[in-house]
């Protein structure tokens, strides 16, 4: 029997469930390795070579090289793991979150200061805004 996934109709949201976790295992564990300073240094010295040490798909490696976090998430990445790449790059969590929204850093910061993204129109895929 298929698993029930009532969260597939939430717009702009990927739930990190068992299937995503399975697909993203090596990608997320690569991210986890960046918790160690010596690994951060090796990654920064040659990103491609470091990624090739991991059993990741080529798509996953390309998404990391491009710092395309939405793509990383669609390929099984989880934001708390992907945040280690941001930390390695010296980015704040707000910069990382903002980078996935199509807004500039300034626009995103401004939106948060003004109370954040409204829930209205953002509950269901295809909902009228």
């Amino acid at each position, binding site marked *: 029997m298929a698993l029930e996934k*009532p969260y597939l109709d939430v717009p702009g949201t990927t739930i990190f469930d068992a299937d995503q976790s399975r697909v993203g295992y090596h990608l997320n564990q690569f991210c986890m390795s960046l918790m160690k300073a010596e690994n951060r240094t090796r990654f920064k010295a040659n990103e491609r070579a470091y990624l090739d040490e991991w059993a990741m798909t080529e798509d996953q490696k390309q998404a990391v090289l491009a710092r395309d976090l939405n793509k990383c998430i669609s390929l099984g990445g989880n934001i708390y793991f992907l945040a280690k790449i941001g930390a390695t790059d010296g980015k704040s969590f707000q910069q990382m979150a903002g980078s996935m929204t199509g807004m500039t850093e300034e626009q995103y910061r401004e939106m948060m*200061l003004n109370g954040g993204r409204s829930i209205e129109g953002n509950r269901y895929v295809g909902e009228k805004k």
Partner: protein
Amino acid sequence: MTKASNNGAKITASVYTSHVPAIGVAIDMDKKGEAYWQPLFKGYEYSQQWLKDNKPDVIFLVYNDHATAFSLDLIPTFAIGTAAEYKPADEGYGARPVPVVKGHPELASHIAQSVIQDDFDLTIVNKMDVDHGLTVPLSLMCGQVDEWPCPVIPFAVNVVQYPVPSGRRCFMLGQAIRRAIESYDKPLKVQIWGTGGMSHQLQGPRAGLINREWDNKFLDRLIDDPEGLSNVPHIEYVREAGSEGIELVMWLIARGAMSDINGGAKPNLAHRFYHVPASNTAVGHLILENK
């Protein structure tokens, strides 16, 4: 199970607060006075004095690990720390300059044994570092200190990989934790803290979501209708409070441990605070005292 005695341990109060990492950075980098952060820290001034006036012997601190101590190699749904101490973790920016967290191995082991016999299958952890999920609430409540005011029992809940435990399960677990603490025969004053939330989403095109109305209804219901609130399904948290807003189920563990859930008097609301934003997140905070 041993019956609670008047001379045994008891839960005196519960504290609820968000645990946003940027708050830790603001404290550590001395940015508290900045216009951006001032209103947030003002909301915790009362709480810091309250904690001094109501110093517990032990804090049972419910939080979640953010891919720090637990990677995808091991994902415990509920993990209780029974170690003598826990180091603040390096989450990629270097460890926070805060004191080492001292544990309470004796009470923690007692709770583990009691709660497991009460049908909640906990993972027992004797070695782990603790991340901002645990240290930011301590900083918010204690300020910058040379040592934390008392031992802390870390209780980590998986809210990273879905499905996280249901609100209902968390609420019932809180009740089992209360029974465990009350069956400990030393006269300890224990506070239970529930952390995380409130509404926030850190991923995807919907990142930055905040739902002030839903958050405040959650606070109202946590105070007055925790039983009803515990029946709210995951999907409502995700849809209304954002994919990371689901951390709020952890507040139901602390709430379930309060006396009124077991037929006692309604708790006293000592403090309530809500503020948007801290980085990507809505910050909520409550203090409830058992009468």
